[in-house]
């Protein structure tokens, strides 16, 4: 392991930079929620970030306060983070492999005469 001896804005050395020992676990924290916002009617809800809240109602109210202060949303979803299941990056190679050699699924695979203008 190497020492980082250069300091950055807002980043002042604390003697080793070891800020995460498990002394304070998340045990007493309010649960973590993922926030999804529909920007306007007709669009999908999109993940915008996360926050802590005691329950779903509080999560939605807090999400409104932090993520829609400038009218960025017309609808909010919150999901407790622990309920999100994710694919694993280390499996990505084999997991997405079946799609890799099927270039005929893309429209650009097909050569058409120029006369066919829009297809």
């Amino acid at each position, binding site marked *: 392991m190497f020492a980082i001896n250069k300091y950055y804005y*807002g980043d002042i050395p604390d003697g080793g930079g070891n800020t995460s020992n498990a002394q304070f676990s998340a045990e007493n924290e309010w649960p973590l929620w993922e926030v999804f916002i529909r920007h306007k009617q007709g669009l999908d809800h999109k993940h915008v970030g996360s926050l802590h809240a005691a329950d779903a109602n509080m999560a939605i109210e807090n999400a409104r306060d932090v993520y829609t202060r400038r009218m960025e949303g017309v609808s909010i979803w919150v999901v407790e983070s622990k309920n999100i299941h994710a694919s694993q990056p280390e499996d990505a190679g084999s997991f997405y492999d079946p799609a890799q050699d099927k270039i005929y699924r893309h429209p650009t695979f097909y050569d058409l005469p120029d006369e066919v203008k829009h297809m």
Partner: protein
Amino acid sequence: MMQHEQLFQSKIDQEVKIEPLDWMPDAYRKNLVRQISQHAHSEIVGMLPEGNWITRAPSLKRKAILLAKVQDEAGHGLYLYSAAETLGTSRDQMIEDLHSGKAKYSSIFNYPTLTWADMGAIGWLVDGAAILNQVMLCRTSYGPYARAMVRICKEESFHQRQGFESLLVLSKGTETQKQMCQDAINRWWWPSLMMFGPKDADSTHSDQSMKWKIKRKSNDELRQQFIDMIAGQVKLLGMTLPDPDLKWNEERKHYDFGEIDWEEFWAVVKGNGPCNKERLAARKKAWDDGAWVREAAKVYAEKQSKKILKSA
């Protein structure tokens, strides 16, 4: 391990963002937790010097603006804490590290806000300096940090503009108002320059954060960019910057400037600035006073969810 490390660096070199579940070197993770949490703490502590003036703003308009700005800063703290949490640290741990003095925050917030003009000077100079750093961080290699920065930059521009505009009004006011404006600039100028950190030359070791593309510009580069920008803008205010050595250098195409007082810089970093104790005490008090709320809300939520289970 070696292979992981090479793959990681090649992703960085190809400008592929690193995401939370990806393999990363421990030092990269630690460095990010430290930097992002310190950045978050800076947003939160940064609310204190301005909070001082909310009830004393000179008009309802200025009060509403200041409230909105302080509220933004709370939000920015949240975005950053959330980004740090994706690296495996807990919110409580970060807050504990702030309170124990283990984690730092930007030293600029250890200076007092003595007059109303300080609100303008903070917006223009302090937020101006922060924005240069944050614009660069929009392209940082860690995905959640970069996304938080994009969100913050979108909101931050109003902070700097309202600050400059507020000083502009003072600069066109009475003699006393003009003096107040100049005095605030005089007090905030040097601490703002210190926000960019020590000189590049004082770093003798390899620049790991650059290699990892956590950071993309050096302290001195950003500082020069800031000085060039502000040296132009201060003329529009009809005010001056408190540096007799500040002069345009035609050869460099940059402004030359005087020596920063590094002794003061390190004294404030080490806890001996004008307001270090006061700021930390205010944060701790807010946290302790809020303990019963956090506890009560948690117990209430648990009780409610049991009720729902029962009735189902």
